[in-house]
């Protein structure tokens, strides 16, 4: 058991750190620290240009096989990449849904033709993806998706009717992967398909959702005879749930370590503000700031254990199962701590009509952390049932 990286990997760390220092500047300078959670709507075009810059340097999709444009980077190297990226203040990755979710899904479940068609656009920063899972009636109960997919034999195309919601970056995306019901009258996990749809088409309408921050990262996506080609289904009709669950497994991947460094940046700012305004002398706040530090240190260790220990067959270890519940709760508490450190100033905006500062935005947006990607309550069910072997919830 050790926490150190090998000399070879430390050399890799210097390489990526050096590249970022040399390239995250000039026209990209304003992007530093932008585009993270709660700020995903900012600078979309510039951030896409930055994705292409990264791609030109060979720094997108580094964990993918070389044959698909990646570097075959080891888990350690991917960890290092994400750490250095966050340390440098690299902007929120416009391409992360494609790189982190759809790419691994196509590598695991897709056809060779699908890989050849879609992976290069992700790798080169020219095509962007969003996720079409949640629906108004399918949140925690994701298997309750109602969006219908029917195959039009005459035209040889899939047609879609229904609605997705909470879709991040839908307006900035070229494609959407969609979980839809292929078997009329089916319910639950059965009878679903996993599809790849172009966003630019007459049958798709996008409506932004304004959140409590006043900004809109999320959208509603409406399908009215939207379509895709016959071959744009991953797996067979009926395989959709298996493929979709595979994607959720990839969500707990190496990029989470970069997230930890964003959290560290936020905690550092709270510490600076506390020292400046005297909150650092308040014994109760001192306890809470120390608790946040301890919690973040352990979050990183949980993450390193998760990355060191995951079984090769993809089954989730205990440390993987607690991960979402842990970080979301920690981060939500950090938001409240930030406001308590700022005191009365926490209520005052930078500017009208609703210009939040970074900590205010974080505080408000962290209320979503314990909901999206599986609520804390769903996470606890998963932990109790899968990690502790307690009885499953009865299904209605």
């Amino acid at each position, binding site marked *: 058991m050790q926490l150190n990286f090998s000399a070879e990997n430390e050399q890799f760390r210097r390489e990526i750190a050096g590249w970022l220092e040399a390239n995250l500047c000039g026209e990209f300078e304003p992007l530093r620290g932008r585009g993270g959670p709660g700020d995903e709507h900012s600078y979309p075009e510039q951030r896409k240009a930055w994705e292409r810059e990264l791609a030109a340097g060979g720094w997108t999709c580094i964990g993918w096989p070389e044959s698909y444009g990646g570097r075959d980077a080891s888990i350690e190297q991917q960890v290092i990449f994400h750490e250095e990226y966050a340390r440098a203040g690299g902007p929120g990755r416009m391409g992360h849904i494609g790189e982190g979710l759809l790419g691994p899904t196509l590598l695991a479940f897709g056809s060779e033709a699908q890989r050849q068609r879609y992976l290069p656009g992700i790798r080169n920063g020219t095509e962007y993806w969003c996720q079409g899972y949640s629906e108004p009636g399918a949140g925690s109960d994701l298997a309750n998706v109602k969006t219908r997919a029917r195959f039009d034999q005459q035209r040889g195309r899939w047609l879609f009717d229904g609605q997705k919601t909470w879709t991040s970056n839908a307006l900035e995306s070229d494609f959407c992967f969609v979980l839809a019901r292929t078997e009329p009258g089916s319910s639950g996990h059965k009878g679903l398909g996993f599809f790849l749809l172009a966003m630019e088409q007459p049958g798709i309408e996008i409506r932004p959702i304004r959140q409590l921050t006043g900004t809109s990262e999320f959208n509603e996506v409406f399908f009215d005879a939207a379509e895709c080609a016959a071959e744009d289904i991953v797996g067979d009709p009926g395989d959709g749930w298996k493929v979709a669950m595979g994607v959720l497994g990839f969500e707990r991947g190496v990029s989470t370590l970069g997230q930890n460094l964003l959290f560290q940046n936020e905690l550092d700012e709270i510490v600076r503000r506390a020292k400046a305004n005297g909150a650092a002398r308040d014994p109760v706040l*001192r306890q809470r700031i120390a608790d946040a530090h301890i919690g973040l240190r352990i979050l990183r260790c949980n993450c390193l254990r998760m990355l060191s220990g995951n079984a090769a067959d993809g089954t989730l270890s205990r440390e993987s199962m607690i991960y979402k519940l842990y970080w979301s709760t920690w981060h939500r508490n950090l938001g409240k701590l930030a406001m308590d450190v700022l005191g009365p100033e926490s209520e005052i905006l930078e500017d009208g009509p609703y210009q939040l500062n970074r900590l205010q935005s974080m505080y408000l947006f962290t209320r979503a952390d314990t909901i999206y990607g599986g609520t804390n309550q769903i996470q606890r069910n998963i932990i109790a049932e899968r*990690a502790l072997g307690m009885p499953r919830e009865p299904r209605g």
Partner: protein
Amino acid sequence: MDFKFTEEQLMIRDTAEAFLAEFSGSAAVREQMAAQPAAYDAELWRRICTDMYWQAIHVPEQYGGLGLGYVELLAVLEPMGRHLLCSPFFATVCLAANALLVAADDRQKAEFLAQIAAGTTATLAWTGARGQWSVAGVEGVWSRSGEDFVLNGQWRFVPDGHSAQLLVIAAREAGSDGEDGISLFVLPADAPGLGREWLPAMDQTRPQARLSCRDVVVPARGLLGEAGRAAPLLGKTLDLASIALAAEQVGGAQRVLDMSVEYSRERVQFGRSIASFQAIKHKAADLLLKVESARSAASYAACIAGRALLGDAGDAELREAASVAKAWCSDAYFLTAGSAIQIHGGIGVTWEYDLQLYFKRSRSSEVLLGNGAQHRERIAAMLLD
């Protein structure tokens, strides 16, 4: 970067688990608890020292030890906490041997670590009557008498202090305060003028004692480090011990969680197992999060402790790691043990059921070497002052 046990470390842990399952079962623990004054099972200690050799697990080979690291020490401490081992192990190895590793010169290490490797029991006394665990909490006093040193005063809450054969004692120069004037001494427990009194304690699985010195003479060769300048050495020792205790706490917390899940699956109310209620499932899930995170914290700290003993990690890094681990593991163990009683219902508050033993151990372990709030304040001082 490979943040998990190696095959060899897993083997050490599993061997310890099997040994303790056999020799530190409920009956054995309860027999130890009943002894008045507290006494350990000499035969079990002999087995540990001759068959397992755990007392020298992280002592360098040149001093008669196995020369393994702090992670290997962690690998045996977790099962010890899991089985509530009643033994002078923690006092001897995690307090006294660590003090010697940190503060002794080569000649002293050769002499005293060899004694420990041969099965001599030992402990560290530093806390005064006021019960402060920090270096500044040392109250007993040293003075000079020619070449020798003379100890006077009271030490309280000394783990296994009434039975240890070898003592490491921290004292301060008369009139000094804070971290000034601290010295560390090593001396036999039967030194003239040294009084020892067992303190009956709520947790009967880890005995405590009061030591008193009245003009106890320590020859110069019993001084560890430099007279009056041992505060950093004592601080480092306490940090190492805190990390060891955190590892023990992980084992105890895991055990009470396991007991609770098992019991909840068997216990039927309203026609169904209580494990099927979300009120119980969600509580158990929250506890697993605490326990797995405690394991991460203790593992992290053990890695840093290992580097600190090799001189590869600084005092500040060790202090931070120790406080992260001790704060989290103390709170996690107490929460888990308390919640375990709630999940068990009435049977959880009986004397016959072992849960009460873990509940008491969780509390005594929380107190020993500083509770969560005290360690958070140490972190706060590092971040904010």
